[in-house]
């Protein structure tokens, strides 16, 4: 998909949250701390990392669901900032949420849920047009008119996620942030929804930022994969490349920790165990955030954050010790 141009560019994105420490004191929690990447038109960029690494926050900050603390989001050559550009942007970029149970309003019918973005942006002239569009959208996700007048609680998890996807498609977007869209679904339903994402991409030419923690799913759906750790991006490369030859010590251990659904391979798999837990982002280590758990850490890692640089074509890594660990 490299023949296409850049659709979305994120430059040095920062998202801090003030954590109240009592009595007029607060400390910034650096959920995302200087992340830069770009997404090409028509591609799927997978974003992986463990809980608290800031992957969801990246998705939300791009869409300006949070006001970013710093950095730029450039969409189709235009920087997103003021109200007017944001409203335009939100017609092109939408989101599918993780939890299909809490992301749909229980008091609205499916047709109202799906049509809400149409109403907000005034995209339909009259009721008949709105109705037709709702049915078309439901059709995309394998639902039909019979479902339109029902309420969300009448559906199973997989069907609810379909409704959420139909809503995200309502404004005819080009770019969708998918925040763990299949994590809450059963295995047999997961595949249905993953395939639907694939088919919709082909049909409508969509670009995805696919956030998930299931690495096998991410690899299946993504063209490129970015790995985050404690608010920083540590590696970014083609999906196959990063899966076969991860360079950053964190990506290596993360990928080796994936339980493979194949008993012989699982038994033979050499896991790189990490000691300890992820530090709290409130007291992130100095320098490289991963150094406290990294088997290769040295003094230089404590001194400064390594630069996120391209070590091979299209393969970005942030690690001081890359040359030494080979």
């Amino acid at each position: 998909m490299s023949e296409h141009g850049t659709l979305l560019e994120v430059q040095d994105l920062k998202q801090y949250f003030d954590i109240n420490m009592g009595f007029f004191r607060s400390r910034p929690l650096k959920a995302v701390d200087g992340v830069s990447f770009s997404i090409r038109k028509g591609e799927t960029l997978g974003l992986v990392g463990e809980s608290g690494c800031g992957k969801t926050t990246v998705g939300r900050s791009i869409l300006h669901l949070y006001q970013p603390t710093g950095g730029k989001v450039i969409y189709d050559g235009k920087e997103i900032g003021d109200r007017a550009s944001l409203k335009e942007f939100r017609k092109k970029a939408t989101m599918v949420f993780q939890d299909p149970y809490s992301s749909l309003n229980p008091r609205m019918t499916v047709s109202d849920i799906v049509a809400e973005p149409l109403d907000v942006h005034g995209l339909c002239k009259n009721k008949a047009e709105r109705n037709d569009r709702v049915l078309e959208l439901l059709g995309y996700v394998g639902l039909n008119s019979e479902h339109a007048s029902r309420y969300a609680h009448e559906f199973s998890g997989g069907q609810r996620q379909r409704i959420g996807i139909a809503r995200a498609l309502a404004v005819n977007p080009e770019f969708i942030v998918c925040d763990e869209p299949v994590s809450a679904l059963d295995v047999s339903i997961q595949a249905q929804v993953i395939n639907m994402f694939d088919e919709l991409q082909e049909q409508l030419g969509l670009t995805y930022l696919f956030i998930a923690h299931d690495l096998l799913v991410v690899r299946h759906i993504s063209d490129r994969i970015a790995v985050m750790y404690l608010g920083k991006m540590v590696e970014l490369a083609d999906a196959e490349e990063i899966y076969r030859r991860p360079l950053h010590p964190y990506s290596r251990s993360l990928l080796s920790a994936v339980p493979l659904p194949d008993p012989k391979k699982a038994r033979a798999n050499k896991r790189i165990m990490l000691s300890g837990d992820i530090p709290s982002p409130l007291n992130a280590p100095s320098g490289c955030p991963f150094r406290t758990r990294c088997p290769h850490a040295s003094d230089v890692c404590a001194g400064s954050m390594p630069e996120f640089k391209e070590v091979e074509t299209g393969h970005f890594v942030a690690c001081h010790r890359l040359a030494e660990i080979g």
Partner: protein
Amino acid sequence: MKGQDTMSENREQGASAKQPLLEVKDLHTSFFTDAGEVKAVDGVSFRLDRGKVLGIVGESGSGKSVTAYSVMQILAPTGKIVRGSVKLDGQELVGADEKTLRSVRGNRISIIFQDPMTSLNPTYTIGHQLVEAITLHTSRKRKEAKDRALEMLRLVNVNEPEKRLKQYPFELSGGMRQRVMIAMALACEPDILIADEPTTALDVTIQAQILELMADLQKKLGMAIIMITHDLGVVAQMCDEVIVMYAGSICERGTADAIFYHPAHEYTKGLMRSIPRDDDNGERLQPISGTPIDLLNMPAGCPFAPRCDRALKICLTRRAEEMWVGEDHISSCWMNVKDLAAQGVITLEGDGEHE
């Protein structure tokens, strides 16, 4: 098991050569709700030998957790074992009095739950909860129990165990809490550890730590583990034997290799096709069609038939019996009969009539 409590004598007596450690026969557990009877476990039989790791996989609502809870009889008030038998070393547990059950729970069968956040009491320290569990189940006094608690925390690789004893659950991370749960569950050296989705709430690298810890302890202490999970990767990594459940009954059961390399039930085959693999080449996954089953509205025949692409007429009306499809490999699927007939291995009376 040096110098353990009184239970150890019973253990030795029951442990004859052929007798399985745990034998579950035709277990039926139902929940009686306002909407009607929900047959959460509908005729489940299996056996578990000493020192083995048995995986139970299935989707939500397949009855995998309820099966485990029935073994320990820790069901919600609306749930009841309708019939069937659960034998631990030959001793019948269904219908046993509360005193017997108390001597089994925690002592001989322990359980760790999915969510380490909610399974510890937030108002007591880790030490208090560990010591409580140990004094309750063994004859140890407080002082000895505290030593044992420390020993257990060291065993599960909790760093700074002395400090942890004085901490409250909220001060520990998820992985650490799960370690504490494992320490608590293993403090009385149970014969069987039931792990109900022990790593589902944890991150991948923490999951790897916990799974390795469990595998290590299993080798060290020689207990049997029942691993309940929906993650086929975890099963492949951990289990000797696997049970695949769908809608309250067992579809297929066999060694991990048999289940993964020679699945003999259409549901298992569907599951295997629908997950992304290690050697994924970006081709479309082949999902199982349809929606999960409604336990209040069970079909007459095979519960999987409404979603099965290859369903025959007989599948809709009659549930297949358990069939041996290989050594230690059992499947309840009519397709096995059809395939054998197609190969000419067997002939069917009134062949094709049901198709």
